[in-house]
């Protein structure tokens, strides 16, 4: 604690002045992200809860609704997303190892895979809207075999668009953060002492993936 020690210690450029050292700063930012993810769980939890209630209430209609999802596209997209989680994890590892080029490549790969996912999602959305499945005024679809299920199918599609829409919004925010990380990684900001931004970016990205892992069976695989 003596003054001498404080003066001789080299000041890392990314150490914010109100932290004692980089270790404390790293722990604080990681804990902060975990706490944020806890709020995210509750946020998605609310809509999952509402989904569950209506799944029970409109059991048959939800099954009929899920038939409008293309499970092959969904599965492929799930694979794409899991792939992006892998490249993200490798990016964190590379940042820690001071391998600047590898970090940048991995981050760009993550961004591309995320972009593919969003693109496929947009294609699916356009298909649904084309079929008149977008809830509200645009909803023109009528279930021909079981017309009584139509209302429930609309409910299913409301949740489908609501849940995947929120998920996609998180992906877009994540993509924005990735671009920022790519810029910082290129500048050579990260090394074994300081890689917290990439790491908490990774936590966020994995969380968004996990949400999808839950969404996929709930929305695509009700057969």
């Amino acid at each position, binding site marked *: 604690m003596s003054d001498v020690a404080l003066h001789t210690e080299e000041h890392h450029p990314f150490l914010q002045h109100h932290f004692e050292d980089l270790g404390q700063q790293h722990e604080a930012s990681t804990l902060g992200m975990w706490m944020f993810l806890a709020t995210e769980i509750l946020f*998605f939890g609310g809509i999952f809860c509402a989904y569950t209630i209506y799944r029970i209430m409109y059991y048959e209609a939800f099954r009929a609704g899920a038939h409008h999802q293309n499970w092959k596209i969904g599965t492929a997209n799930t694979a794409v997303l899991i792939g992006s989680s892998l490249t993200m994890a490798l990016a964190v590892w590379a940042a820690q190892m001071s391998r600047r080029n590898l970090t940048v490549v991995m981050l760009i790969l993550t961004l591309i895979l995320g972009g593919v996912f969003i693109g496929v999602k947009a294609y699916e959305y356009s298909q649904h809207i084309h079929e008149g499945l977008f809830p509200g005024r645009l909803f023109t679809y009528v279930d021909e075999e079981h017309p009584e299920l139509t209302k429930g199918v609309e*409910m299913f599609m409301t949740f489908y668009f609501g849940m995947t829409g929120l998920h996609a919004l998180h992906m877009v925010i994540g993509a924005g953060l990735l671009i920022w990380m790519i810029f910082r990684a290129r500048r050579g900001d990260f090394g074994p002492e300081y890689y917290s931004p990439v790491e908490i970016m990774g936590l966020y990205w994995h969380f968004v993936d996990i949400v999808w892992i839950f969404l996929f069976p709930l929305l695509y695989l009700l057969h």
Partner: protein
Amino acid sequence: MLSVTAMFFVGGIFAFLMRLELLTPEGDLFTSDTYNKLFTLHGIVMIFFFLIPSIPATLGNFILPIMLGAKDLAFPKINLLSWYLYMIGATFGIYVIVTGGVDTGWTFYTPFSTQYSNTHVFATTLGAFIVGFSSILTGLNFIVTTHRMRAPGLTWFRLPLFVWAIYATSMVMLLATPVLAITLVLLMIERVLHVGIFDPSLGGDPLLYQHLFWFYSHPAVYIMILPGMAVVSEVVAAFTRKKIFGYKFVAFSSLAIAFLGFLVWAHHMFVAGISVYAAMVFSFLTMLVAVPSAIKVFNWTATMYKASVSWQTPMLYVLGFIGLFTIGGVTGLFLGALGIDVHVTDSYFVVAHFHYIMVGGAVMAYLAGIHYWWPKITGRMYPEWWGRLAALLVFVGFNLTFFPQFIVGYVGMPRRYHAYAPEFQVLNVLSTAGATILAVGYVLPMIYLIWSLGWGRKAGPNPWGAVGLEWATSSPPPKDNFLETPVVKWEAYDYPAFLKAMGETQHV
């Protein structure tokens, strides 16, 4: 702090207009539509824009890092962001007020809010949604700061009780607010697309909305009252010059309140059509919350027992808090009991109950905290005589306003109407008279506190002779709170040792 206080006055004006209307049994000042908008705006402004951010965002942001011996909160930029979010949310609120208001009640109950109301529901819910993020980020910041930024030697059980209670509050903010956020998102989806998530005529379930809404909004009550308790613990210790009786009990009761607060939401819905068995369980769980609350009250009183209490303004507010919170809490038990609740649901009894908690509790504690830390924040003393007068006015005015409402509610006056049966008039006149006194009591501190900024007596580092890290630095504190990071070697509220060291037995 200025923004929050401004909102308090906006909300207060709505309340006062309502009381003015209720002076006579007939609806002669406003139409029922205007009255609907008044109570809605009063509720929304007071709850979302004043009570929830009041103590955490003003006192907490300033005092918490100092109490922990930290230079700042863990994420200063996120803190700034949460202020911007608050201002954006408040802008939506102001926009709604200026352009014609909203009339759904602060609860936004469906299907009225989604299908029928033609007022500014969308902008209001968006405002509440944004302010919600502001409080999530504040809570997150506090939790991380408490975990990671404590000064050397400051163990968990050496923390001031303020920190414990704010920590519990932050937990509730963090875990409950997102549920409100998603609920409001669903509400906005329903309103914009005209689909039936919560509308029974379109296949939805309005009860689900109420469940989701109260899953946030009941814990939100504890977001409002726990910081009040935080302030009370500090002030009681400082003005009795004793250790808080049962430190660990008070500390853990904060966490217990935060935890139990998540399990009682359906007591707002006893008459909404939930099953009898569910209602019984929730009634029982509601009773449980009284236990940690009572632990706190008993421990504060035990601390004051045989102490030399000094009667300065913060202490007066705190005594008011303890008394009024007890009344509010006990009537809460009445409401938690199924039979009585069915009788008094949606009557003025409920209105009086939650005002005893929210105003008698949270606002009193806020004023106590403002006065207690005013010298630390500004470096100036407020005028003591005026402070005591205002505290007295607030106490008298408050009781005169809300006590008659218990009676008038119990004999059957329903809430949320602008006209009422003539036999209720006497009590309503009393209530409006009380509101006038209360208004004076609130305007006074506003005036003399601003006055004290320029002309108040200079306060030293420790005007109260209190222990605690915040009193060990200058008033106002330097940029990094302390000139060098403090090392804590003593227990919390160690007044016996402190007084011995100071060589004084009596405080001025």
